[in-house]
């Protein structure tokens, strides 16, 4: 009985942490997927040195994409860490 109560607790803590990670990443996703592009016009007044891109255009063409890729590798690592912390990760 104590074991199952313990399991229930671990499940809830694990899911709370997982949900928090989800909302954090969704926040970053929303910012780079939408919010930053709402400011494309002012950002276009900034020209990236050497490369010559207007910043607003660059963020939509490359900047946000790079962030998405990095985010996913980071997320895979973080979620795995959470799973291990609560003993729910798969055996290696």
């Amino acid at each position, binding site marked *: 009985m104590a074991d199952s109560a313990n399991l229930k607790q671990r*499940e809830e803590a*694990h*899911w709370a942490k*997982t*949900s928090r*990670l*989800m909302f954090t*990443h*969704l926040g970053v*996703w929303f910012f*780079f*997927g*939408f919010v930053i*592009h*709402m400011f*494309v*016009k002012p950002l*276009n007044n900034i020209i*990236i040195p050497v*490369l*010559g*891109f*207007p910043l*607003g*255009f*660059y963020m*939509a*063409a*490359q900047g*946000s*994409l*790079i962030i*998405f*890729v990095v*985010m*996913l*590798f980071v*997320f*895979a690592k973080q*979620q*795995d860490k959470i*799973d291990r912390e609560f*003993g*729910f*990760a*798969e*055996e290696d």
Partner: protein
Amino acid sequence: MATRTSGGTDFLSNLGKIYGFYTGGFLAFVILLAVLEQVGVPNKILGYLFVFFTLAVYAIIGILSRTAQVSEYYVAGRSVPAFYNGMATGADWMSAASFVGMAGTLFLLGYDGLAWVLGWTGGFVLVSILIGPYLRKFGAYTVPDFLAFRYGGNFARGLGVIVLVACSFTYVTAQIYGTGLIASRFLGMQFELAVFAGLVGILVCSMLGGMRAVTWTQVAQYIVLIIAYLTPIVILSTKNYGFPIPELTYGQAIADITAREQEMLATGLTTAATLKPHIQPFFNYTPLNFFAIIMCMMVGTASLPHILMRYFTTPSVREARQSVAWSLLFIFLLYFSAPAYAAFSKLEVYTNIIGRDLSAIRPWLFSWGELGLIQICGKNAASIDAVIAACKAIADHPGVVRLQDFVINTDVIVLSTPEIAGLPYVISGLVAAGGLAAALSTADGLLLAIANALSHDVYYKMVDPNAPTARRLIVARVLLLIVAVVAAATAATKPGDILAMVGWAFSLAMAGNFPALVMGVWWKRATATGAICGIIAGFGLCLFYLVTTRYFPGAGVKYFGMTSLLNAATGAPLVDIAKAMALPNAMESFPTLAHPLANKVGWFNLTNIACGLLGAPLGFAVIYIVSKLGREPSAEMQAYVDDIRKPRGRTVLEEKTT
């Protein structure tokens, strides 16, 4: 390929070597063809060699990895390493729309086209965080499988199948259309015939071995398509700016385009009314539609059954997550290059075609003109005489090509850029082979998703639960064939351009699947009745908006209060509704794009590509409200949901494998 039926561990541990060897072989083949071109082998032969050699390789891989085992057939034995699954997903994902259509769209729309680039990459964040790994833990063979289990029974399964077939069929039609386009240009066949020729290639890969064959073929196709996509722009980048990384040098190209735009305005080669400045935002899409397209493509990505299904094939939940990250990396390689492709191509068109004398038009252009894909002075540019005659008919024509005289179909840009820039023909052939790989790999994945849903979900789970394995797999193959032929017949009627068709597929997937999938994992309280009502309401609204605006716009205006969409740059209505409604055919002309109101009316000025934006929120709301009204799901079901949230342990749904 060493593929013994029992697991094939030799094969899996040697993947690096096998695909390394394969890549080297492909490069050697390209070099060989380049040499052949130099010694004077005609272009047509080179085109044939490219198409047939690559098709033969895919077919061989498909045949070698054929299988009759159920779990191999449906989920490749759940043994595909994250890295290779990422590559296969990349090929599965990047369709004719990405390879052939994307750069063309960016060429035409400039900044506004980036909505597609953003939408088709950001969606993977949602796949990984919200859905993919959980469905892997669940252990289903198909997406409807999950819906059926979570929402208790065959009604939810049936709805899942309907959504799956609707979006996958729309999508596969676009792929077959793309294949037909490439085959008709490079093999010199009639478009309608070429569509069916492309179909044969698709079927060879996916008919025999199900998911396993498709996976290993898609890895091979990814390698071909990425080499093909990057080669011409690396050459152009080096040629124009002396540096071989196009993603870094095209900032310069953009500046050159802007300068040339000003120059063309000053010299009368264009007018302010026809020029669409390349970097100016919200010129083609209103901000609402720009962000709506991003949202629909992102959420659609996380709802497309053929993509979600790819994450059922990894050995573990952890690898499913890593695999999503690898997928996006491989996809990113193409997507962050597409704007460079568009910029280089646009610069070449603006300098090599616009402002040139009519008699100096290069002959390659006529082969596209014959297909009706390039028009000069309003007529198909089929020959030099046709062009000169057409331009003569325009009053005060200066005898040089002006921007407003030149209309190029967006689907032609990528395929023709090597020719526009005067690169050797072998590069054109390479690009065609890449486009073919992109279209074939996606079509394979889609057809498989449809056939699996029909054979596993409809035939096995709903019609005959005692069907023996052999019969289930035969049914899968027969259905695959039927679906493919119907899709090809639809594609031959050219129902829309590639990008629009694909956009519809995403919106339909978003409205139909997303709310039910996300709520199924993240909200234990979601009930079967809630989900069923939610799917019907969300998907129904999206489908209604799509069909009405595309096929029955007259009825939309008359009965549903739709109004004309507005021009993003000027804010003026796209059509005069009163005038169009007065026409005798306003309420009929069922399928033609030429209907004066088709795709030009709607609610809130929202384009029908983004109909998911209407459907998905409605779906969420309905699931929430109806679930709250009903009784809580059983304790057993809630325990199952807890179970799919933890990577450790057995999958929730164990399939009979024999």
